[in-house]
């Protein structure tokens, strides 16, 4: 990528997209161009690695979200089974109240 042969000599070009067109910027030939090409390759490898890490983390995130949902459901189920209920987002123990106390 970026290297082009003209009359037996290699020249390095940097490609960039301008709208629908791809524009080539001439960089040069020889050791300087080699250096620029090596830097570009290194940067591209880093970008690819970062992207792969991001994709992997997205997968982890999906699993963690699922795990959170299940753990929350199990926690709620346990509290409900233990006689708690939610009141405006807060867990409270089910009390029997005046009516039930009178019956007892």
């Amino acid at each position, binding site marked *: 990528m970026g290297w082009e042969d003209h009359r037996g000599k290699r020249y390095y070009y940097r490609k960039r997209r301008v709208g629908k067109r791809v524009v080539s910027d001439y960089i040069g030939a020889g050791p300087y161009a080699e250096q620029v090409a090596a830097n570009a390759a290194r940067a591209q490898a880093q970008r690819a690695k970062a992207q792969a890490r991001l*994709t992997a983390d997205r997968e982890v995130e999906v699993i963690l979200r*699922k795990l959170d949902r299940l753990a929350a459901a199990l926690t709620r*189920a346990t509290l409900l089974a233990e006689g708690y209920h939610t009141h405006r987002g807060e867990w409270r123990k089910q009390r029997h109240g005046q009516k039930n106390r009178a019956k007892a």
Partner: protein
Amino acid sequence: MAKRTVRKPKSKPAAEKLVKLVRQVNTEQPPKREVAVLDQQRQNPEVWRAVSDLRELAHTAILKPFAPAARTAIRQRLEALQETLGYAESPAIERLLIEQISTSWLHLQLVQVVYANGDARWEKRLTAAQGRYLKAIEKLAQVRRRLRPDTVQVNIGAPQMNVAGMLNAPRKTRNQKKSK
């Protein structure tokens, strides 16, 4: 640019049923019959298996970039973290929440490392990971406070300690512990 494909883990029917049931029953006055059904469902081993499978999947995915030796060391560190939270002597639901804490802690460490290396795209992920970790701690404290009423939360500086059984101890012993 790499194609964004996220593989979704398959849902287990028993686990999905539990989630649905909880949504139905979680009201101000939960109907007794449905609570009984929910109680049965939460003891279904398939639900617990689904949780442990998902956790293993999450650990494998998080530890994938590490060398095998590092993976073993990290797993040992996770076990140590779980022990400090009283994993061995806790009931099943608390164990689940302790595992939740350790998993979210592990993920948070990884995200912190990537963010510290200068990838600004990870800022939102870092915030989410921190939120998940704190929420898991909050859940454990909430459950312990409700299901173990003799647990006292002691905050000394930054670390938080849950001391079980302290309320039943004689007043003198309690005060001695406090003064330390």
